[in-house]
């Protein structure tokens, strides 16, 4: 399968990319790593007249320390994020989610910002981004603005990025010393999760002092389960201590029904996987 014909530019600066986007409007499509876009173009589910490749903009690549946060460039490949020492130290939940995202070849090519901007509710990065309170830097012709993770994901495959804007970097507040786990339920290897739960906990002795919990594929956007986070605070990291909080994981969600499972099955999975994810994040037995 071959995509429909398109024109192609590969600007070398964000300014040039934004200008190209402004010029071509909704006839243009941004390509980051292309691991989601190219299959769509090949199946001709989309046929843009212009493809703007961000792959030659070096400033969009890399991870840096920024005081109380780390900043991940939008064009940083998953494989680089997954092996970055700053990510491992300060955003272990991101490292955990990236480790089993798709497969090795896709992780070499796919990018952190591309996956988030694609906003597939079954994608692995939205839940950790929401759980850790990430902030999204979005560049347009009027400059750069910042959007919180709570406001970034709007709907199915829809984000706060405007038609003439580009996601440039993602700022993740440091969660240094927190335990993290991404619990993913799949039928076969390298598939999108049927449901997944992202959990980070700050422990004080055997007690969960604070928790952050995000849900993958439990609605049209990645979700943050604040009711679970609140209920976990002060609980012992034991199966009994975590169970009641995990039972709240599906509250208020509207998960999809498809061939992999109906909504009720997904709600059940969310509760079970939340218990497992939190216990594993806390390093406790019984996960």
């Amino acid at each position, binding site marked *: 399968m071959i995509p429909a014909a398109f024109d*192609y530019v590969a600007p070398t600066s964000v300014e040039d990319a934004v200008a190209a986007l402004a010029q071509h409007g909704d006839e243009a499509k941004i390509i980051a790593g292309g691991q989601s876009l190219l*299959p769509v173009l090949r199946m001709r589910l989309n046929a843009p007249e212009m493809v703007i490749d961000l792959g030659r903009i070096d400033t969009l690549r890399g991870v840096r320390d920024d005081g109380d946060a780390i900043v991940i460039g939008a064009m940083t490949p998953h494989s680089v994020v997954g092996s970055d020492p700053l990510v491992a130290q300060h955003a272990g939940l991101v490292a955990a989610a990236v480790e089993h995202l798709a497969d*090795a070849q896709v992780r070499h090519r796919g990018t952190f910002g591309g996956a988030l901007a694609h906003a597939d509710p079954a994608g692995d990065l939205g839940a950790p981004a929401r759980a850790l309170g990430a902030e999204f830097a979005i560049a347009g012709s009027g400059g750069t603005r910042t959007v919180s993770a709570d406001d970034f994901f709007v709907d199915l495959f829809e984000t706060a990025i405007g038609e003439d804007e580009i996601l440039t970097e993602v700022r993740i507040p440091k969660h240094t010393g927190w335990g993290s786990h991404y619990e993913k339920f799949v039928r076969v290897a390298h598939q999108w999760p049927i449901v997944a739960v992202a959990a980070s906990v700050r422990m004080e002795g055997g007690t969960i002092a604070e928790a952050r919990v995000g849900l993958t594929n439990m609605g049209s956007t990645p979700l943050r389960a604040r009711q679970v986070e609140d209920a976990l605070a002060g609980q012992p990291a034991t199966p009994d201590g975590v169970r009641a909080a995990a039972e709240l994981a599906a509250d208020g969600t509207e998960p999809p029904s498809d061939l992999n499972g109906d909504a009720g099955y997904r709600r059940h999975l969310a509760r079970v996987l939340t218990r497992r994810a939190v216990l594993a994040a806390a390093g406790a037995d019984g996960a």
Partner: protein
Amino acid sequence: MARITLKVDGSTVSDDVEPRMLLVQYLREKLGKTGTVIGCDTSNCGACTVHLDGTSVKSCNVLAVQADGREVTTIEGLADTVDDELHPVQEAFRECRGLQCGFCTPGMIMQSVDLLKDNPDPSEEEIRLGLEGNLCRCTGYHNIVKAVQQAAGQSGAAGRHRAGATTAGAPAEEVAE
């Protein structure tokens, strides 16, 4: 059309290509490098895996224009043509019979080379996870895993393939480290 110049299997090549041309198409149709195959055409199966600047990618999921200025290694560039010697991973796949129909083999070998570059002494689980983006519909993967173990120089791997070839569920001692 866009002009691209890149290095493929050690040789510099330059061509005018349509922006929509996939890297795998370019390799096969323009350069005649049909050793890299198209398996699923949906970027699931990994049969088209090549190395782009030293890391494995699915060449059906990269545009030829994106490889401009970069270096590509295909299955055809792996062997030592001067001394007429197969790459150790190719040799191990042959020794261990890590194939039946052979269609997934170019991708399996390219991904195995990448895997061993990052992790020269992988466990069986690490091999299976490292190859999760490569599908084989014949072997059940057992001899492929053994080939990677043999290429990694893990002791005992060489002698196991005869039993493994006829044993669907490999006994515990065969898969133990």
